[in-house]
């Protein structure tokens, strides 16, 4: 699959802002499929996007629909994945006290609602490694409190880690899908093109 030109990207469509990701991907010439239940996972895909939304809702639905372990296995086997906001929370292997991890594949500790309630939501133009300045929209966002071995930091805003890469996993605290800038999605598609 690594050689074919059009990349097929699966977008987790249980809840949240998945349509926004699909729009970006289609603009960049990728094919999108929505993942809403177990049966949707029985297909080949070149990459996976875990969108923003409410992580508790998405995590519970993943569990109830029997998809958690399947996704975990595919990510551990190297399927390229981009998690934004709630998606980053799903990937993290450590959350706050008494909050069990969901997919548990990304060795970072993530703090949820780290900037407070909606009044704490904000937008900045921040530096993203390898890309330059990109618009960053933070909505009731998390940030990364600490990273494990092998995790590369891609962006820091006000001394907080807001984007990381670990192997084929990209975890981002903000919402690149909400701004017009498509460079982060392009970077992810390049990752998918390199295959796994």
């Amino acid at each position: 699959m690594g050689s074919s030109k059009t990349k097929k990207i699966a977008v987790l469509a249980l809840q949240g802002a998945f349509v926004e990701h699909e729009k970006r991907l289609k603009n960049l010439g990728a094919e999108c499929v929505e993942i809403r239940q177990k049966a949707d996972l029985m297909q080949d895909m070149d990459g996976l996007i875990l969108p923003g939304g409410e992580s508790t809702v998405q995590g519970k639905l993943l569990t109830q629909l029997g998809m958690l372990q399947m996704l975990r296995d595919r990510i551990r086997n190297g399927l390229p994945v981009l998690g934004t906001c709630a998606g980053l929370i799903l990937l993290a292997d450590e959350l706050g006290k008494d909050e069990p991890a969901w997919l548990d594949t990304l060795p970072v500790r993530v703090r949820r609602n780290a900037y407070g309630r909606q009044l704490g939501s904000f937008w900045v133009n921040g530096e993203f490694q390898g890309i330059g300045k990109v618009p960053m929209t933070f909505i009731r966002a998390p940030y990364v409190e600490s990273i494990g071995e092998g995790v590369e930091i891609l962006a820091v805003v006000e001394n907080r880690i807001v984007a990381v890469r670990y192997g084929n996993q990209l975890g981002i605290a903000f919402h690149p899908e909400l701004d017009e800038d498509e460079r982060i999605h392009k970077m992810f598609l390049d990752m998918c093109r390199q295959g796994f």
Partner: protein
Amino acid sequence: MSEERYVLNKQLAQMLKGGVIMDVTTPEQAQIAQEAGACAVMALERIPADIRAAGGVSRMSDPKMIKGIQEAVSIPVMAKCRIGHFVEAQILEAIEIDYIDESEVLSPVDDVYHIDKKQFQVPFVCGARDLGEALRRINEGASMIRTKGEPGTGDVVQAVRHMRRMNREIAKITSMRKDELYEEAKQLSVPFALVEYVHDKGRLPVVNFAAGGVATPADAALMMQLGAEGVFVGSGIFKSGNPKKRASAIVQAVTNYQDSRMLAELSEDLGEAMVGINEQEIALLMAERGV
């Protein structure tokens, strides 16, 4: 509210899409709702069915009660203020509510003016029965719309009517010539720019949820198939026999709203649904408040 803040507020609504927002009256109910997969909760002292039963003037909830719910859950917390009551809205902003619902469920305090929502930093959601109402609320600063439906009845007929009407009116504008939009803006009593947006994009400029009378997973899926981007469930959950199970089933029904086999499974063994009231049987039509 700055333009940037307004955009952020619309974007929070985007994060709620495909989710279920549940009415809760206690921290315990809020936790049940979160546990069942609610994407946000609406904190209020009495759910619409009880407001309807009790009669009398219905007001904003006690901030202490709302704060109790904010502490109990990590998902966004919304609360209602009365139509036109900008001081109740100021109070809700002061306790850092995530979303204010300027709601016809409570007794309106102003029969002419809605709140100037642009004066606030926190986002507002407002009810609408048709496109004109929706665009007027958006013009006042609402960053999310929901159908009014008829709250507290367990009867989804009005939500269906409102959603269909909105869709029909959007389709009509989409098919108009551009030079006809000026007259349409005049008819709807809204600025030209909003009508032009609907014409160009074929949708509202903000997220649109269904609300009012949703009581079963099938009701929720119906609203999603009719084009709702998510669902509010008020009395339908905690007025039913098994709130936990019903809440979770409605959440799953909203995600897989097109899979009838799954909807059949989700509809099994939910216990008793809330007792509904048909629209002909009710004296008070809350949907007629604040147009």
